[in-house]
């Protein structure tokens, strides 16, 4: 009997202790009612907009012991950029919108006087009309950014990425996409309950602009970058199961066709695996660069090839295979393997260094060798054949609203790397401060170790409206 009484007393005490524990939680409830109501209720129904002003100051350090010297112009030692970025949609009725997305830059940099026509530039990313004539049937007309791909570091199926990035402030491939030019096109899309089909046609409206030169940059839409050939894209996706939604792509340019596929799959509660692949008949990237260089006058017609990849057109694949993993501490890791069947093999690299070693920066040989690298960068295509990409993103690092992001892109052949670390602090709903540091590492005969840019540091402040 005593035991039963003791047990009942213990139960009563335990229950009281538990209730007291629950009462402690009440102390954590903020006593103040929300003071300032967000503008969500008052925001204009006439348009949706995202506007910000950003000031970015960049310093570069350059290598002066390059095995193959880079021809001018070299990256500036410093650059100051004030930019106004806008993305606005205006409704034209219940089923039509006009969308604008662009950026106005005011730039001062080493080697560019002030005032100068290169000081003020405008990037017209998008300007298009979208209508929905029937529910979930869409027709878009104008300059449109069409993006594809599920990987973070390299999107083999992102066929419209080539030549679309201007003046990047970061080397992070997952952020590069934020300021890229759309393509002038007409696009139709049908969205069914369990899938989507879209067709896009982008006409040639002008000749290809030479790489690295935008002679009338200013406020030009730069169609010479985005609409210098006739292109088309058919893209379809289907929801086969709750969590399986593969995407297939068919792309055509200048009579050549590529196919592509994207697939993602959830693995457990913390991991997403993905694969992205594209393939088609084409030249190696060196041969392609030389053809393009001659077409645009960058390489004289009669100049001999300093380096080539055999000039053979064949079926070549590009792929990214990877996975993301998120920890309980709000860190997300992405690990990817990248393959470019058109990239440089070990032999190609040996010949690249052998051909350029000891040349002067202004020699035609060095110019041709570096033209190949500029061509690959301009097309956002990896020059290396095999690469490993690791990215980490830590939200609320040390303090709330501080986000730390870092990535490493390593050439699997020589181990050279491109590294970047950035921190962004959202000081309020309207102000952000950021710092970014990047560096290339590797030996003098390595991919990233042979680049003129050794390291970069960037400070930025952003005001959102």
């Amino acid at each position: 009997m005593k035991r039963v009484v003791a047990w009942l007393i213990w139960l009563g005490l335990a229950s009281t202790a538990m209730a007291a524990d629950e009462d402690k939680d009440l102390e954590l409830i903020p006593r103040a009612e929300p003071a300032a109501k967000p503008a969500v209720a008052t925001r204009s129904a006439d348009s949706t907009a995202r506007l910000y002003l950003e000031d970015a100051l960049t310093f570069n350090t350059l290598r002066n012991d390059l095995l193959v010297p880079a021809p001018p112009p070299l990256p500036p030692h410093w650059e100051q950029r004030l930019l106004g970025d806008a993305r606005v949609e205006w409704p034209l009725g219940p089923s039509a919108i006009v969308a604008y997305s662009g950026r106005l830059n005011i730039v001062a940099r080493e080697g560019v006087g002030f005032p100068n026509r290169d000081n003020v530039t405008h990037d017209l990313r998008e300007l298009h009309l979208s209508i929905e004539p029937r529910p979930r049937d869409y027709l878009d007309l104008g300059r449109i950014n069409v993006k594809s791909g599920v990987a973070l570091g390299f999107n083999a199926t992102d066929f419209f990425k080539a030549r679309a990035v201007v003046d990047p402030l970061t080397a992070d491939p997952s952020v590069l996409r934020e300021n890229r030019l759309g393509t002038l096109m007409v696009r139709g899309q049908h969205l069914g309950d369990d899938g989507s089909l879209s067709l896009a046609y982008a006409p040639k409206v002008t000749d290809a602009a030479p790489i690295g030169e935008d002679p009338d940059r200013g406020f030009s839409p730069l169609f010479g970058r985005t609409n210098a050939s006739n292109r088309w894209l058919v893209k379809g996706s289907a929801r086969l199961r709750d969590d399986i939604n593969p995407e297939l792509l068919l792309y055509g340019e200048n009579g050549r066709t590529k196919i592509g596929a994207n697939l993602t799959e959830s693995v457990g509660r913390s991991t997403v695996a993905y694969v992205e692949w594209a393939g088609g008949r084409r030249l190696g990237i060196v041969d392609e660069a030389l053809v393009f260089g001659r077409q645009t006058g960058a390489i004289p017609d009669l100049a001999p090839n300093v380096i080539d990849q055999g000039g053979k057109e064949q079926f070549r694949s590009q792929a990214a295979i990877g996975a993301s993993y998120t920890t309980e501490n709000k860190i997300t890791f992405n690990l990817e393997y990248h393959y470019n069947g058109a990239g440089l093999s070990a032999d190609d690299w040996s010949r690249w260094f052998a051909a350029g070693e000891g040349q002067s920066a202004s020699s035609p040989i060095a110019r041709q060798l570096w033209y190949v690298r500029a061509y690959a960068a301009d097309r956002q295509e990896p020059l290396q054949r095999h690469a490993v990409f690791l990215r980490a993103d830590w939200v609320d690092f040390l303090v709330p609203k501080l986000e730390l992001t870092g990535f490493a892109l390593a050439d699997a052949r020589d181990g050279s790397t491109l590294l970047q670390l950035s921190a962004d602090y959202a000081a309020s709903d309207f102000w952000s401060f950021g710092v970014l540091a990047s560096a290339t590492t590797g030996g003098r005969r390595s991919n990233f170790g042979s680049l003129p840019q050794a390291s970069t540091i960037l400070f930025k402040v952003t005001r959102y409206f």
Partner: protein
Amino acid sequence: MSRQSKLFLAAAFATSLALPAVSAVAQSAQEIVAASDRVRNPTEPFRSTLVLTEYVSGQERSHSAFVLFSKLDASAHFSNLLEYVEPPRDAGKRVLLDGRSFWFYDPASKTSVRISAQQRLVGQAAIGDVLTVNLAADYTASLSGTETIDDAARQKRNCWHLELKAANDTAVYNRVEYWVEQGTFRPVKGKFYSDSGRLLKIIYYRNFIERLGSVRPAEAVIIDAVDSSLATIAVFSDSRFQDVPDAWFQRDYLPRLQVR
């Protein structure tokens, strides 16, 4: 028969008597959770605005706001589509939370990235998801007992204290402690735990008003249990029933969503 053997037999007998009772309780616990789910959200598709105010050490720090489209699917899970309206830096970002398929769309990069169940908890949008989740569909409930606890307004409430265990992969949290008021089935409080058993969030439901055809909580206080100086008050407003086509709940619809 030794004293220990007698005790063992008595315990076994008591357990055998208790088994059917436990089963009945488990069944009714599940019904309590389901009834509470119906108090929190309707079964018809709806649209709502969700304003979140974040506090650090009791001081208001920042705001975010979403427009939320929610629809119950055939398996009694809510499919959610959210668009950030505030703060300005995030305006236009969208999140699709549909069964086991979660996508994040950023209009700046115009790309959709698939995220894991764990990664969906990183952003504020997860709060919208947590508030619409049908706990009965994702968790197996058992009754821990009855308790009188204070609600967010420090009013005494006679509650069922329920223990919820994740029943499938779509469950956002591994374990939930849940207090539901007896008689009204109004949710009073929830404690949400990670896979490792760590207490992540404490949620108080409050301000029960007529909303979406019934009396439902219009506010939730979400306390970050990992860093208890952080808390968020979530307020539903502008709630209305709206047809939400199934076609909206796929990656390719994300760039097309118009919240006007």
